[in-house]
């Protein structure tokens, strides 16, 4: 048995410090740099995977280095953390693989790989850290990486959008930091393990929720997310689908389900915000014609479902919400990568000007369809189980009317995704020269589609794993 703590550190710091040497490697050879980037992310993923047996057995892994002022460097791997880490690093690895071809003919590749790997490393750090200050630290590193990635094409508009995303998320994060400092004043520590089970005053909850909602682009702060679609497609997949927006969700689960007791009225509030967010974003997606913005609005809408599950306050909802993170990550990542292939080969992002692409890019079309089915929640794909559990969790919590709103949102999801699929792939070709993406890229999207299907067929395994997470939640003990 290898030393678990060393593996934990490797999972976090291998990508972070490895990322810094990527630009140097890039000067030597592009292939070396690309493969190293993939290896770093894969290594992180494997390390996280290796924790599964022990956390399933209830043995959580702690690494701690004592420092004064309550700044102790503490990393903590429990079921929730391991789950998040595996999901994000796995999808991240696929996205890095996809980038090999997608990004190969642009400037600033060195910076691209540096930032992507740094971003994933910071994500690992955020997921595993059990100290609020380090959580904030990694949270902001992801924001910095995002800023550079969204502005990847360097155009005036791209940079403006990047700045906007950066400012909104940092603003939210700073408000959250005030909340953290207030927690410190109350409890005298930043350590999450020590604070477990404490009751939080409402004002602090509001401050922290502000940060969470801004990062996960929920209703009042949603605008930066569609705008961030100016970034290259793998980046949008990374930001929107797989990783970035899930940070908010993860921190919500970590703080308000695993650590603190908050008054139940907050759960209802979060559900209401999530419902509004789901409905409004779905409406926007119905009329949007830019393919990437459409999928981005769909993300905002789906994040609402995750919040519904987590805020429902019961086992089915919480497990469903976490499962949703996995299924949505796979399916939405697939959709974005498909959109990337389409955009690159059809030379447009406007879905009304596409059509009949199924003839020229059949694999992409099938992958898109499967991923779309999963997002819609059609059995037997993975999305069905998660959506079903989330909604039944909502009903169980007694908020029938709110849950009804979500069901309407789910129908709208079906509508706008079918509309998109029809416009893009079916009908007459509008004369755009289009061809299938490169083998690597197509393989990536196909893999994601297959995994979405497999996730549905084998849904027992992740659900069983997540149940152990559910048992650890303080919010559910009452």
């Amino acid at each position, binding site marked *: 048995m290898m030393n678990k703590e060393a593996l934990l550190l490797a999972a976090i710091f291998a990508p972070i410090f490895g990322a810094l040497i990527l630009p140097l490697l890039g000067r030597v050879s592009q292939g070396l740099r690309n493969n190293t980037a993939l290896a770093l992310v894969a290594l992180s993923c494997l390390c996280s995977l290796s924790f599964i047996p022990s956390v399933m057995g209830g043995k959580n892994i702690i690494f701690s280095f004592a420092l004064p002022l309550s700044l102790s460097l503490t990393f903590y791997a429990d079921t929730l953390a391991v789950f998040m880490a595996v999901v994000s690093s796995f999808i991240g690895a696929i996205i890095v693989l996809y980038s090999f071809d997608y990004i190969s003919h642009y400037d600033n590749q060195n910076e691209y790989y540096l930032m992507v790997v740094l971003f994933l490393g910071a994500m690992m750090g955020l997921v595993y850290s059990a100290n609020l200050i380090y959580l*904030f630290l990694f949270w902001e590193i992801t924001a910095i990486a995002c800023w550079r990635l969204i502005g990847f094409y360097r155009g005036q508009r791209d940079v403006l959008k990047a700045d906007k995303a950066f400012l909104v998320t940092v603003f939210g994060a*700073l408000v959250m930091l*005030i909340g953290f400092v207030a927690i410190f004043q109350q409890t005298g520590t930043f350590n999450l393990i020590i604070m477990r089970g404490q009751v939080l005053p409402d004002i602090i909850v509001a401050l922290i929720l502000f940060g969470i909602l801004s990062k996960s682009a929920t209703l009042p702060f949603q605008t930066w997310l569609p705008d961030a679609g100016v970034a290259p497609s793998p980046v949008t997949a990374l930001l929107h689908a797989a990783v970035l927006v899930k940070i908010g969700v993860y921190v919500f689960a970590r703080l308000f389900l695993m650590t603190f007791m908050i008054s139940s009225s907050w759960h209802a509030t979060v559900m209401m915000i999530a419902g509004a967010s789901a409905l409004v974003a779905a409406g926007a997606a119905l009329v949007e014609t830019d393919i990437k913005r459409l999928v981005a609005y769909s993300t905002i809408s789906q994040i609402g479902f995750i919040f519904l599950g987590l805020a429902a306050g019961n086992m089915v909802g919480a497990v469903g919400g976490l499962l949703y993170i996995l299924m949505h990550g796979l399916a939405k990542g697939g959709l974005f990568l498909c959109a990337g292939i389409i955009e690159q080969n059809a030379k447009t992002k406007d879905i009304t000007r596409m059509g009949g692409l199924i003839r020229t890019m059949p694999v992409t079309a099938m992958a898109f369809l499967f991923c779309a089915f999963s997002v819609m929640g059609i059995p037997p794909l993975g999305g069905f189980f998660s959506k079903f559990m989330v909604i039944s969790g909502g009903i169980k919590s007694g908020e029938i009317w709110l849950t009804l709103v979500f069901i309407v949102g789910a129908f709208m999801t079906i509508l706008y995704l079918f509309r998109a699929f029809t416009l893009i792939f079916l009908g007459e070709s509008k004369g755009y020269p289009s061809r299938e993406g490169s083998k690597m890229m197509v393989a990536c999207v196909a893999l994601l589609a297959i995994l979405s299907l497999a996730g549905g067929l084998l849904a027992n395994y992740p659900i069983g794993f997540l149940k152990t997470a559910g048992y650890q939640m303080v919010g559910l003990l009452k």
Partner: protein
Amino acid sequence: MTYLLLFIPFAILILINLFPREKRTEPAFWLGLAVLVFQAGAVVASQFGYWGTILTSQLESVFGFNLQLYKMGHVLVMASALAGATALLVARATLKNKRDRFNFVGLLLVSLIGINGIAMVTDIFTLYIFIEVTALATFILIMLNREQAAFEGAFKYLIMSVVATVLMLAAVSLFILIGGGTSFLDVKMAVISDPLAYTALLLFLCGLFIKGGMVPFHGWLPDAYSSAPTAVSVWLAGIVTKASGIYALIRLMVIFGGLEPLQNIMLTVGAASIVIGALAALGQKELKRLLAYSSISQMGYIVIALGSGTVLGIFAALFHFFNHTLFKATLFANVAAVEEQTGTQEMEKLGGLAQKMPITGLTSAIASLSTAGLPPLSGFWSKLLIIIALWISGHYFFAAVAVLASVVTLAYFLLLQRQAFFGLVPAALKEVREAGPILLIPAVFLSLLIVVIGLVFPFMIQMVLR
């Protein structure tokens, strides 16, 4: 060590003037750099208790100076060494005239002596003298290459400086009248016993606010910074205004820490400086002016931290003081590189320079983000400590102001990045190349320090607190 910090620069100052006229520029540069290296080395060596007895005891009998170097003085001495070395290198690259370069070294040494004096004084009037020595050298430095705008900048600074002098000396005379002495101890006794001395202390603080360019006395600062040669701006922004205004303020707060109305003044002035400086920076079109307003805003953070009145607050203020030297010196070195390669510092004419000048672009991004307080850079930790100090001492409103102004800080630095470094290269700048190594070395070194301190700070604090 206290004597050496004054006499070694003094001796070098005499020495460089002894060289023959034609050959003195190069030796002056290297000797000046040697002094700064000695300063930094002295601070590091003193951490291991090296200077305690050897030289001091012999010099004691010759020079009966009443000086003391506390731990907090080390921060100032170290920061001045870093900023001074950066300024020297920038001067070497940007000042074309040999005589200017020579005079720059001389004046830098004079003001360095002033700053070292400020770090060690135990007497409020001596403090004033050294502040004035620093300021005098600075007036001349601003005028060094006699640009048109520099006359106005320097004269404005001089006027404000004399006004500050009047306030400070009025305070000193009141201290003599009430306390019968001007040493910090006498002054403290006087302030505790008599409300008139308290007023005098406030006058003195006003003088320091003027020297440090705090709102509402900040009018001179952007003019002085932007009209000076860039090498001088590095020195001015990196250490001079902070040493003569803000450091003295920290020193006094250590002595008079517990006085409630004093804290309220600090909090108000600090918050006003943070907000007004940051908002004004948003509207600037020139790099140097933007950085000048940013300085006002960052000085506000130091002052507001002092207002918390806790030990943590003073520690945070000192730490931010040091950090500010790091990132402002880096940014001004970057401005020097940009100005040198493109010939302009107006942001409208720049763009996309990160592609043409990758190292300058990277270091400026690191320094900007550190100023805005983003982790894992050193600026994050100092701001975090400031916020914690304010929050725990119950100043919730000011903590919130300090936090939210960080967003404005980030906004104007993103503006700077967007206009100058991030983005596409305009046609006029297609031929621009990276600046020479002399300008890159300080920027790279300082930004490395920013990153390393940011990463190891939690470990560092363990050493400091022990």
